[in-house]
């Protein structure tokens, strides 16, 4: 796997970054936004080319750094994960949902049928029993952490990882250092 340093050394340009959230609450993205004024300094060094935070609709062909939040719970999550792996040189698994499956994976101890029954029969009063199938991605049998479906380069546990932790790890990457996530965050942090 190529490192970020090689890419920055060869061409002194801004690092391109793509982000997305799969089965997550967007809290990890919010934690990233909590970098506050440090975002301005970061904006000098990185270019967010694809993300829920910007307008681009299409993942570019080649991205330096991909950041995925959320577990892999449905067909669309799986596609996104594969797409990011294909197009990003370095892939970060951000937050406990992506890293462990976390809360979304709590459904794994129940059969999928029971999950549907709970959501669309037992817990609804309006039109019980109507399970949406059109325009919604099908659920996978098991919710998986990101690294169970594609290789991941860096893991940032935490629910959400604190802004400081995200910052330290990004700063290390930008400086060409190998980040040490356990020094700044942990499961459930």
């Amino acid at each position, binding site marked *: 796997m190529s490192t970020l340093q090689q890419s920055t050394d060869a061409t002194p340009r801004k690092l391109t970054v793509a982000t997305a959230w799969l089965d997550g609450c967007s809290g990890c993205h919010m934690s990233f936004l909590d970098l506050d004024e440090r975002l301005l300094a970061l904006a000098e060094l990185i270019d967010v080319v694809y993300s829920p935070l910007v307008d681009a609709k299409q993942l570019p062909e080649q991205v330096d750094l991909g950041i995925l939040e959320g577990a892999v719970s449905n067909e669309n999550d799986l596609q996104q994960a594969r797409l990011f792996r294909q197009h990003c040189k370095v892939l970060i*698994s951000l937050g*406990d949902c992506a*890293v*462990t*499956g*976390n*809360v979304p*994976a*709590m459904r*794994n*101890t*129940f059969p999928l049928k029971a999950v549907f029954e709970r959501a669309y029969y037992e817990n609804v009063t309006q039109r019980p029993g109507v399970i949406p199938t059109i325009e919604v991605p099908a659920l996978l049998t*098991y919710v998986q*952490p990101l*690294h*169970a479906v594609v290789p*991941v380069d860096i*893991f*940032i*546990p935490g*629910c959400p990882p604190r802004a400081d932790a995200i910052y330290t790890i990004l700063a290390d990457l930008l400086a060409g250092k190998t980040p040490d*996530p*356990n020094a700044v965050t*942990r*499961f*459930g942090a």
Partner: protein
Amino acid sequence: MPVATSPAVRVVTLNIDGQDLSAREDETIIEVCREHRIPIPSLCHLDGLTLWGGCRLCLVEMAGQERLFAACSTRVAEGMHILTNTERLRRYRRTIVELLFAERNHVCAVCVSNGHCELQALAQTCGVTHVTVPYRHQRYDVDSSHEMFRVDHNRCILCTRCVRVCDQIEGAHTWDVKGRGSDCQVITDLAQPWGESSTCTSCGKCVQVCPTGALVEQGTSVGEMVKDRRFLPILARRRQPR
């Protein structure tokens, strides 16, 4: 538990991670390491309780020996050369911690012990950023029948601290272990609901020594379960034969 000191214990010299140290010959490797602030991860070992030797996190290497030794259950000896932090040991420790996370269901973010859990802390200090083995996703029971305490088997790592403290310190022997392999589970009385136990005195010692969020006080919410084990060394000392 420190072995009862006989009047004529000898002192031995040994080497741990390059440091020359002396120790009483009735001490274990882990005791000597703790005294000298040499970190050794452990889960089943708890000062004040008898030995269990089940978690294998405390494994160390010994010069001239191919096999590894559990620091909690190996006595020191003259001339021992011990290594506590080799790449092989670090790899094994990470694997053990990962297997514990994969075996049951740990969701630290919503756990009452978040921030006060020995397993969670060990993952961080042993360098576990993710679990490389597949999660088992087996459902385990939660027994909330006791009016003060709750057992959540999803978080239990089978260290048997609860079993030992209840038997050896409280003298109630409410806890025990049933089943083998992945069916292994701690039980109260003869696998009856804890709240119906005729032996439990509701002393809470098991809850305080439990390293994880498996045994907790009722009414605690995420991250609120802080444990207090100060009673243990005091009571353990009083229970030693004089």
